[in-house]
């Protein structure tokens, strides 16, 4: 069973922030000249008086967002992950995280698939950077359904949040019965042979990999971790205790992302072997999505193969 096609997370974001703003006058959007890509153009068309074009000037944009938050607004800042996290990091650190201001930083086009732009734009150490920052909440939803719920949840939460968003259309994993809860992991699939923690859109690939593995008699337990910080430590420790060894998967470098968070937690609380799947310690490159996923080893097939190798080695 393959998953039904769904919208890109960026589209779900543009639509949801627009809807929420209908009833929540605190919501404003700040754009770094990328609205037509990150899809806050949807918001601009609906709420032009609450859309602020900051131009191609990200350090200033994050600072302006901090200022607006002190006046009672809930700014959603929209640009690509590379420019939010890498370019504007000092603004985020000093003006948003340290004073714990209510700014929602969205990192669009995060991960490996940023429309052939190549290494300058491919940001897959964003979670590592933002997770290391005190006071920051880090959320990485899997599909459009969860993205909508997550945006509602982070709007209700008072404080700085980094929301990871991606560019390509993404299959739908969750139905409307799904409940995203900040700081909580979700069991997506049960299985006895291997336990995988994954985050973001990579969860949809692991889910499909699990179907391939099931056909070979390998049953995967899949725990989706959409909030990377604060981490659902109980869910992770419980699953590790049951399984005895765990695998992590993410469209992010294996340095500092979900895999690191899980390994840190387990080494403190319940040491078991942890195998991290994700992107190697490298920069990306231009190319079509499916070729990048293959080459960098995180496609559905590559994920299935990696998990199978790990299971057979045990």
């Amino acid at each position: 069973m393959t998953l039904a096609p769904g919208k890109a997370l960026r589209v779900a974001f543009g639509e949801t922030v627009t809807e929420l703003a209908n009833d929540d006058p605190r919501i404003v959007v700040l754009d770094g000249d990328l609205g037509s890509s990150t899809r806050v153009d949807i918001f601009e068309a609906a709420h032009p008086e609450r859309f602020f074009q900051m131009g191609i000037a990200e350090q200033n944009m994050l600072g302006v967002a901090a200022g607006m938050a002190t006046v009672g607004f809930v700014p959603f800042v929209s640009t690509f992950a590379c420019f939010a996290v890498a370019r504007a990091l000092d603004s985020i650190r000093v003006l948003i995280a340290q004073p714990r201001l209510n700014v929602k930083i969205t990192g669009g086009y995060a991960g490996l698939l940023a429309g052939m732009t190549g290494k300058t734009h491919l940001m897959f150490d964003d979670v590592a950077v933002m997770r290391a920052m005190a006071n920051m909440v880090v959320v990485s939803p899997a599909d459009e359904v969860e993205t909508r719920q997550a945006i509602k949840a982070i709007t209700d939460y008072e404080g700085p949040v980094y929301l990871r968003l991606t560019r390509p259309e993404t299959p739908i994993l969750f139905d409307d019965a799904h409940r995203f809860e900040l700081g909580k992991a979700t069991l997506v699939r049960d299985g006895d042979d291997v336990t995988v923690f994954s985050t973001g859109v990579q969860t949809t690939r692991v889910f499909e990999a699990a179907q391939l593995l099931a056909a070979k008699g390998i049953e995967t337990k899949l725990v989706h971790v959409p909030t990377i910080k604060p981490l659902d430590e109980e869910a992770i420790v419980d699953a590790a205790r049951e399984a005895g060894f765990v695998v992590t998967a993410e469209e992010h470098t294996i340095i500092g992302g979900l895999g690191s968070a899980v390994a840190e937690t387990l080494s403190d609380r319940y040491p078991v072997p942890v195998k991290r799947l994700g992107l190697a310690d490298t920069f990306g490159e231009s190319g079509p999505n499916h070729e990048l996923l293959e080459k960098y080893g995180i496609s559905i097939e590559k994920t299935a193969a990696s998990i199978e190798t790990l299971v057979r080695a045990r």
Partner: protein
Amino acid sequence: MTDQMIVTQPDITELEELVRQARVHIVRSIASAHGGHLGGPLSAIDMLVALYFGVLQIKPDQPDWPDRDRFVLSKGHSSIALYTTLAMRGYFSVEELDTFDAINSRLQGHPDMAITPGVDMSSGSLGLGFSGAVGIALGARAAGKDFTTFAMLGDGECNEGIVWEGAHVAERYRLGNLVAIVDHNKLQQFGWHGESVEVRLPPYTGNQLVDRWTAFGWKVFEMDGHDMNEILATIAKAKAHSNGPVAIVAHTVKGKGVSFMENNYKWHARVPTEEELAIAERELGEPTGGGAS
């Protein structure tokens, strides 16, 4: 160097024909790669051809020649214009343009000095390339070398604070060996809207860009960035000005050469369909499906 020498050396008609061919390569490359940018490359290409065929002291067979003039495409998203020019100038084959944006290609979405011959500075995150160019010029000065460093920026790129940090330092050190060309095509990617959201305003209007660069202590010239004679003459004047940095504000048309792309922000980074490509080729005076090379 006088205006005379520069203007009379290259054959204007030949350069204009190279520009035409380059536009065809650009449009075809974006269509076949299914990615990349169009509006900005098409506004910049006349100036790139002028630089690489009429101005820069370079040795394409020796891209790392230490005394070469340098060119930094700070508006790195216009990479296909740079790659096309480099290919036509002999840094690599024109056929290699077919690998633009492909996996394992040397021709990445944004210029990468680590892998592409002829790329003097990596860019793609707007504003950064210009800092690198200031550093090259400062380094040349400190090393006693007399080559010239050119940087090309977008007008939207001039939103970035770092551009003005670089401009300040370049003036401070009176870098007469640095020329910034601002591709003033009056559009950025999305920008501010006008009377409706469909209408996107220019990043700067009137004399704003000229005034800003002037206020930062730069000598400023303006030119029509699609007039080959004017481009060569203005660059010659800029080179001749040696007691401080020069900014050339080049008035251009985003998407220049293809009617439906001109002045239309939606063509910043759209991929043409087959039909659109055919129209573009026709408008650029090229038989559909033929080779421009």
